[in-house]
């Protein structure tokens, strides 16, 4: 009987306890969230403040609030200090073209690896997977030498040396082992009967690729596009070495401008916000796709 009572008492107290535990859980989650978000909030808020206030605000929570003398002056001044629009255009061109070319070339390659029998396929696949363990940093220096000698046919006819151009930022990154691998993994899971049926009916490989396989490839295209976009837009080491001329300079390398003469933190924050907020907005809208794309590199790896 007494046991009955005590057990009743404990169940009646349970919701309370449960509520407290839930509160603690959320508290932990929120505290960690603050750690991840505060530098970004600080960046955006600071970009709206004049330098003097920006610095004095760091002593209090005002650093994270839009208080005091708020304006877009820093943005205006940042545009005066450096050809910001040019850098943004360059980055958009380089990133956009690379992503599109990469999707086309890598998906075709993935298709050929999965569905078509050709001599040397196994060997090439092994080679392709082997490139996954070669970090870009280990080939950057010899690649610099190669890029400085490669021929190009453009408006001025045949020229040698790719330094200071768009192609030097684009062509080396069109194909990478990971993107091809993602397509291979995805195509492997497609129903093979579909492709066989089309072949029996006399469709060419090209038709099979365009009419049957690619229309089904939405998820992997999104994954590959997001990963490539992040890698290209955030590139630093390579453009630093191969682009000295302003004309082709991308946003990350353009940052150098803000550190040359006097250091105006407000303008730096404005520039950082300008090149980061669009990406963050893009991420927040497509949040699930972004996270799924990172996750998909893990599951099968």
């Amino acid at each position, binding site marked *: 009987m007494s046991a009955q009572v005590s057990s009743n008492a404990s169940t009646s107290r349970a919701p309370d306890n449960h509520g407290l535990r839930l509160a603690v*859980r959320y508290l932990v*989650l929120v505290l*960690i*969230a603050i750690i*991840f*978000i505060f*530098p970004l909030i*600080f*960046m955006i808020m600071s970009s709206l403040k004049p330098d003097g206030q920006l610095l004095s605000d*760091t*002593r209090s929570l005002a*650093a994270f609030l839009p208080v005091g003398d708020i304006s877009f002056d820093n943005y205006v001044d940042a545009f005066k200090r450096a050809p910001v629009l040019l850098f943004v255009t360059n980055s958009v061109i380089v990133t956009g073209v690379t992503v599109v070319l990469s999707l086309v070339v*890598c998906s*075709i390659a993935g298709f*050929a690896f999965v569905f078509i029998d050709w001599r040397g*396929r196994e060997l*090439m696949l092994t080679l*392709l997977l082997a*490139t996954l*363990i*070669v*970090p870009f*940093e280990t*080939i*950057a*220096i*010899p*690649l*610099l*030498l*190669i890029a*400085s000698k490669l021929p190009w046919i453009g408006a001025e006819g045949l020229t040698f040396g790719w330094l200071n151009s768009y192609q030097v930022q684009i*062509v*080396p*990154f069109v*194909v*990478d*082992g990971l993107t091809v691998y993602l397509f291979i993994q995805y195509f492997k899971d497609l129903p093979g009967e579909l492709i066989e049926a089309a072949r029996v009916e006399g469709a060419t*490989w090209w038709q099979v*690729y365009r009419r049957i396989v690619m229309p089904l490839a939405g998820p992997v295209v999104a994954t590959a596009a997001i990963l490539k976009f*992040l890698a290209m837009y*955030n590139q*630093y*080491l390579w453009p*630093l*070495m191969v682009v000295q001329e302003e004309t082709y300079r991308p946003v*990350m390398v353009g*940052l150098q401008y803000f550190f040359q003469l006097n250091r105006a*933190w407000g303008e730096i924050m404005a520039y950082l916000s300008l090149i*980061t907020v669009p990406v*963050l907005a893009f*991420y*927040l809208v497509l*949040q699930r796709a*972004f*996270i799924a794309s*990172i*996750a998909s*590199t*893990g599951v099968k790896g």
Partner: protein
Amino acid sequence: MAGPAIFLIGLFVVVPFLFAIGLSFTDQRLVTPNPTQFVGASNYNQLLGLNLLPLEPERDAAGQIVRDEAGAAKYPAVRSFTRKNPDYPQYDGMREWFSVGVGDTQWVVLARDVVFMTALVNTFIFVLVVAPLQGGLALGLALLINQKLRGINVFRAIYFMPVVVSIVVVSLLWRFIYDGNSGLLNNLLKSLTFGAFPSVEWLGQPETALGAIIVMSVWQAVGFHMVIWLSGLQTISPTLYEAASIEGASKWQVFRYVTWPGLRNTAVLVLVVITMQAFGLFSQIDVMTKGGPLDSTQTIVFQAVQRGYGKQDISGGSTISVILFVLVLSISLIQRWLTREKR
């Protein structure tokens, strides 16, 4: 149909990789009127050359060790051995890296390139700290995010946010956080300790600079590996958890006997990926410290770029690249071996 892809990956990955190996045995420069020459292993020797110099304390005419007032023995200058001393050609041009005293003898480790040795050590420290720290924190976050709570996706989105921000932007931002005067970190520590905490120039001191960069790097990338852990967690069958709860397993037991074994492959992947990324440490250094102060944040890739690009010494940069590749490869092989399936 795979032709274009194979051509491009061949030209821009395989060929440069083979070039790196080939060029590391030459004196190739980016722009030079002179023909390239084969120089054997001399690039490797220039970077990795080490030697041991036992320094005997100076003795007076009676054979007694000369000591100063504090009783410390007096040693001849290392310089007298390494600067054009015809008796010791093997030490010529080397510099003291560090020394260890054993008895009266001072063993001086000489290096051909002390800065590169420092870069190697710093990179190893970075990798050895970041790999477990970032992997562990990412797992913790993944377990936290894997709870069934209302609004959990919002937290997942926030934790992942720094991943989509360029490391260059993050580095600049954190320069401000670490600033000695108006830095946010100093101000935070000050207000937490009611002004007792003295201002620290986090990136300006050899003792704190690398640590500061480690903390920032983990902050930026931990969300990436959290997501990989999460996808691993979601492959574990819920029936295993049900069985464990029926058996009355504690939370720790559930983690130890259900979750962790189910994450085995993910763990290997996370470890290998973090290690590979950590060995490539460059942008943070270039934006925040340029290798300083006092070479305390020199890294292998920063050295490679300084040589290959800064000094246009392609062969020297390629040699460092090859050394880096050998390190990355051997570490991943060791990791794979250590985490192999035990039968």
